């Protein structure tokens, strides 16, 4: 038996395979397909202080081995989450993180505070990188100053794990990572989607109602891998890697680059059982290469 447990700051996961926010609903959507208790962790949908309708349809465009989305954080607000959703998911035997977004720093603070007392939520993922909202969102994640500020303020009120999710739409991602680490981030996840655009040439219109949207899927993998490598080499806190992971080999590449855990996003849409396959594939790899623990390959790239 290989040891798959990984530690993300204060939280231990039974294995490094998590699912990414906005692609896995609240987990319930996948219960018919997989045994949720097998995966390491779930990051639920982007949650905001107040209920949001999200952007107008169309919100999705298929691109070469990828997709653009412009969902725009549709959700019923943190109150609804606490009172109506949390009770239905709290008994899932996996680590559940809530992805928190806001238009203002106060939004972040109040939302985080409201999640403090949920026993079965070991931490939040602070989304300072959503490209699909007009105010706030990505803007916070694209400068060291504003990124630091959000983390600093949330750190004051939120007691458990703060995982900060970075935007790839920046010149120097390691710099932002160092800034949020300095403010007390327990771990850093990346990448969120890359800002992109799709055009319907026949109709001469943008495909998305918002013109631009966030790119995810295999297309972004090389960029994500590079950024995870840069960040893992810069910071001391654990890094959670994601972006285009479709199979175990992809996941292993992120672990080798320095990620302590990985998240699977878009791939869930194509194969709702992919997280289990990735988990089994990592286990096979470790056995085949005679590693006794997944920790042996984290950051083990030979350069």
């Amino acid at each position, binding site marked *: 038996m290989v040891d798959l447990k990984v530690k993300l700051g204060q939280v231990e996961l039974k294995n490094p395979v998590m699912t990414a926010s*906005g*692609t*896995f*609903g609240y987990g319930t*959507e*996948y219960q018919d*397909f997989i045994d949720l208790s097998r995966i390491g962790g779930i990051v639920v*949908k982007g949650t905001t202080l107040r209920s949001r*309708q*999200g952007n*107008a*349809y*169309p*919100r*999705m465009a*298929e*691109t*070469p*081995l*990828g*997709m653009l*989305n412009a*969902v725009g954080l*549709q959700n019923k607000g943190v109150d609804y989450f606490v009172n109506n959703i949390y009770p239905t998911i709290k008994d899932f035997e996996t680590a559940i993180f809530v992805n928190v977004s806001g238009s203002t720093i106060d939004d972040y603070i109040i939302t985080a505070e409201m999640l403090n007392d949920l026993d079965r939520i070991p931490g939040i993922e602070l989304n300072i990188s959503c490209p699909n909202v007009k105010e706030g969102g990505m803007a916070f994640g694209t400068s060291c100053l504003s990124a630091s500020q959000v983390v600093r303020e949330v750190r004051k009120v939120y007691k458990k794990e703060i995982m900060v999710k970075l935007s790839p739409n920046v010149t120097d991602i390691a710099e932002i990572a160092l800034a949020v680490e300095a403010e007390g981030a327990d771990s850093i996840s990346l990448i969120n989607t890359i800002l992109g655009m799709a055009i319907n040439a026949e109709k001469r219109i943008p495909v998305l109602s918002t013109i631009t949207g966030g790119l995810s*899927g*295999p297309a972004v993998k090389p960029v994500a891998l590079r950024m995870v490598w840069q960040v893992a080499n810069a910071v001391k806190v654990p890094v959670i890697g994601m972006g285009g992971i479709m199979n175990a080999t992809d996941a292993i590449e992120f672990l080798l680059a320095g990620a302590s855990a990985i998240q699977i996003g*878009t791939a*869930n*849409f*194509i*194969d*709702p*059982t992919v997280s289990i396959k990735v988990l089994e594939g990592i286990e096979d790899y470790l056995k085949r290469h005679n590693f006794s623990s997944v920790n042996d390959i984290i950051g083990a790239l030979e350069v």
Partner: protein
Amino acid sequence: MLDLIVKENKQLNNQYFLLILGSPDELPEMYPGQFVEVRVDNSPETFLRRPISINFVDYKRNELWLLIQIIGEGTRKLSTCKQGDLLNLLLPLGNSYTIPTNEDSKLLLVGGGVGIAPLLYLGSKLKEKGIICDFLLGGRSKYNLLQLEEFSNFGNVFTTTEDGTYGEKGFVTNHSILTNKKYDLIYSCGPTPMMKAVAAYAKSKNTECEVSLENTMACGFGACLCCVTDSVDGHVCVCTEGPVFNTSKLKW
């Protein structure tokens, strides 16, 4: 998620084909209006699955029928399926058309183009309930009217073509049957302008109307929130709260 075997790929004409998929195991129960998400393999242009309505299910032979129009790369690739190929599907997805409990219900099923696909299965289920419905099927030309023989097994078939090459000339909403008969419920599936016209007609007659929407989807099972339509309850997912909607719920 399951793999079905292509038992037959019938090219109906150069735009439409019918996939008859088989399974060694018993097929799960499926309701009319539901759909499947097909993975398109060996197609670099087709990253996401493609949603396709359930056209017909033959539980005795364990057969699932998909009626497909070639639109882009995904459907073109599917049109090249050969007997014996495996297709990976998520199924059944979505809600379904309402089946009335009253056997005397007067029902009209209005389909346009490939939008007729779910209506065949709906008609067959209605007949099982003892209801013989009217089908009103429209297309640009004769060429776009499909499965007329199959439809006639389950109800009365009326047709229109825009160019008059078959049935009455004009749009479905111009068909004489609409002035002559009164229905309890109208079901529709097809291009949005057609469904909107049908909905307007139904409203003018104070008749309930259910339509099936075809928003673009990334997942098909409620996880991505990409497929929303605007409803009286705000943005709702077409893949889980639909694809079938009572038009009173839509902001049409």
